[in-house]
């Protein structure tokens, strides 16, 4: 019996050789339970060792294996070849990011953004270890838990045209994480973080396209975080003259 195969078309780019990206098609043995990641791994192992991509966990939690699969930002480890077979699958580095090589994008910009949002608890009331844990009811947990589920896979950035048009936009995932800390009952630094929300790189770059939430593999709903913060920012903008301390500085 002839083995079944499937064609995978990969957007290749080698900074030391190519002026611009080009497409290359590989024929890969196909089984029903193979993920796109496994297909790409097969290429690397047996057809072309120079193909570069990131991956690790294979279980949709480490966030490294994001790729455009037939034009849609996806985690390649939880996208299955069977959903395309027998048609060809097109694989490309995540949109809107600079391509370092093949399917590897540059993460530098995102990491800077993540660092800029102060992604840590700045306690409302400091507590010593002897005092034990902060009390936090399941409802209080629920207020931010969804936003804390972000695996930094950057699919949402690849989905967001406003980020593509303006790479300085802080963007969906970073704002979701910012929001996660702002609404955590233990945190007291919302005012500090609002400065970034309010800034020209902040939430108002978003035109509520909403595709970021559509592609998010972890149900974070980053669009919700961004758009809630438009309201917060607008309130802050207009009310700063009224509030005793003038809202955020």
């Amino acid at each position, binding site marked *: 019996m002839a083995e079944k195969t499937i064609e995978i078309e990969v957007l290749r780019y080698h900074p030391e050789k190519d002026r611009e990206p080009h497409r290359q098609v590989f024929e890969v043995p196909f089984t029903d339970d193979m993920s796109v990641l496994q297909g790409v791994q097969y290429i*690397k192992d047996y057809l072309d060792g120079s193909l570069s991509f990131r*991956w690790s*966990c294979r279980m949709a939690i480490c966030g*490294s294996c994001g790729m455009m699969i037939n034009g849609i930002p996806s985690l390649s480890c939880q996208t299955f070849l069977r959903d395309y077979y027998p048609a060809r699958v097109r694989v490309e580095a995540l949109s809107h990011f600079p391509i370092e090589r093949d399917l590897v994008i540059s*993460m530098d910009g995102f990491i800077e953004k993540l660092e800029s949002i102060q992604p840590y608890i700045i306690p409302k009331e400091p507590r010593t270890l002897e005092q034990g844990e902060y009390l936090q009811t*399941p409802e209080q947990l629920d207020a931010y838990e969804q936003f804390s589920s972000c695996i930094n896979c950057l699919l949402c950035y690849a989905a967001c045209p406003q980020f593509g048009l303006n790479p300085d936009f802080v963007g969906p995932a970073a704002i979701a994480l910012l929001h996660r800390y702002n609404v955590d009952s233990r945190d007291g630094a919302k005012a500090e973080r609002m400065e970034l929300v309010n800034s020209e790189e902040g939430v108002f770059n978003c035109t509520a396209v909403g595709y970021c939430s559509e592609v998010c593999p972890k149900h974070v709903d980053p669009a919700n975080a961004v758009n809630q913060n438009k309201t917060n920012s607008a309130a802050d903008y207009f009310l700063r003259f009224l509030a005793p301390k003038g809202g955020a500085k």
Partner: protein
Amino acid sequence: METYKADVVIVGGGGAGLRAAIAVAESDPTLKIALVSKVYPMRSHTVAAEGGSAGVKQQTDSLEYHFNDTVGGGDWLCEQDVVEYFVAHCTEELTQLEHWGCPWSRTPDGHVNVRAFGGMKIERTWFAADKTGFHMLHTLFQTSIKYPAIKRFDEHFCVDLVVEDGRVQGVVAIEIATGEFTLVEARSVIIATGGAGRVFRENTNGGVVTGDGMALAYRHGVPLRDMEFVQYHPTCMPGTGLLFTEACRGEGGFLVNKDGYRYLQDYGLGPAEPLPRNKFMELGPRDRLSQAFWYEQQKGRTIEGPHGSVVHLDLRHLGEAKLRERLPQIYELAEQFLGVDPARTPIPVRPAVHYTMGGILVDGRCASPLPGLYAAGECSSVGIHGANRLGSNSLSELCVFGKVAGVEAARFAKSAGPGNSTSLQKQARAVEQRVMALKQKTGGNERIATLRKEMAQTMEDGCGIYRLAETMQKTCDKLDELKARFKNVNVEDKSSVWNTEWLLAIELEYQLDVAQTMAYSALHRRESRGAHQRLDGFEQRDDVNFLKHSQAHYVADGAPRIDYGPVKITKSQPGTRAYGAAGEKAEQERKASHG
């Protein structure tokens, strides 16, 4: 070559490495810390841990119970003084994580909730739904951003340690994005590179879990301890090996064979009851459960699937609502990867390699015999897991001993004098030449993937759940052969930017070293203990000859030399390791004899 001068360099940005970095920063904010990781820290494999992290929390629980569970679970091959320190510091560390923002699941009144876990007498496993490792790792990573003293070298691949004047004084790393080398000088070095599960075929580990740090220390003369103890997790996805957390059983899941029978009751874990009971049935320890699977398979009572035999993990009786709340990730994994709705259909599972109990030999303060070198996390053997790790002890270990390693490395750094930069540079250039040679050489004809596959297969054949001298010997021989063939490996890609083929070759060499230590240590341990079970006349535990830690020493161009070190026993004399009703009886007897 770029040089960066740090005080402490940490290799590994997983839970242990990040916790260590924060500990250094908090113990002395003036120290410069370099955190080197081959992946962005939040990609580290700690991210995949699902079930939870142990720490005594309830009134009904005690440090003594946690101690006894751990030492008994480890089949008495634990360093008991270290276990004592460990259990005494788990809760504090988990509370610290809570203060840093970890979204622990809560009870209705707002306290942190705990769940049951295998081999644990009382519920003491803190959890954040079924994404505990994910939340711990992101909390640690994001918190680490607060400390300006921590300079990260993300996506930098460490290729060697530099040792000078009898102490370690830095590391050499490749910047993956450029292919260029950096020397990070430091007065002390912490290795936190995680486990080595990927030397096996079917495993729960991520692609990055290749034992690099173990191999680095080993090649510099630090022994790897207890490497024969490799944990098989009983409930993994056939084919890929992806994990269904033990919390599935903690929440009340059943394991049934092809007749729908809860077979664990036949292996000293009964009686079978409808509700989960700690240390009974499905909540027995992993080694026992994996062994029971093996016997079921021998008896032909497993189910044949496309990826080998399976049994069923039955969660149906828990109901969709509870599954979605407590085990949401598991629900999605089953749906997406297997097309199984766990509220309606049992999940096919089989054992797969999960955890490396052994590792870099360190004392209770995380110091290795090589001055200035510390290790923490799965790559280390600090002595708390013995012959079998209990689920949820490892995440706690990352925090407790990550911190210890950080504090100790900071202390060492402050007391040690500066190194001689010129000679460190010289060494680093030699490292660069050696590693570049691997890429530049031509004419090789061995494929990386082929060697890797053969290694993984032979490890599975020889060092599986049950072991025989003959097959272990075959595995040892095969590994020797693979090491020889590695000299002939072909790296097609000669370029600099993001040359992952080159990195895979370097990893493969690390893996072969680590695999050898596992196979040879296993061959030499002529008894059955914990995760190391033999069927060739050594079916019993042998405390007279083998209540000892194995130590594998590096021998250039040869097989590792195995010798043994003592086990520290303080409070708990080796006893029978019993679970289920027998376990309960044994405990009562023990209590009675203590008066």
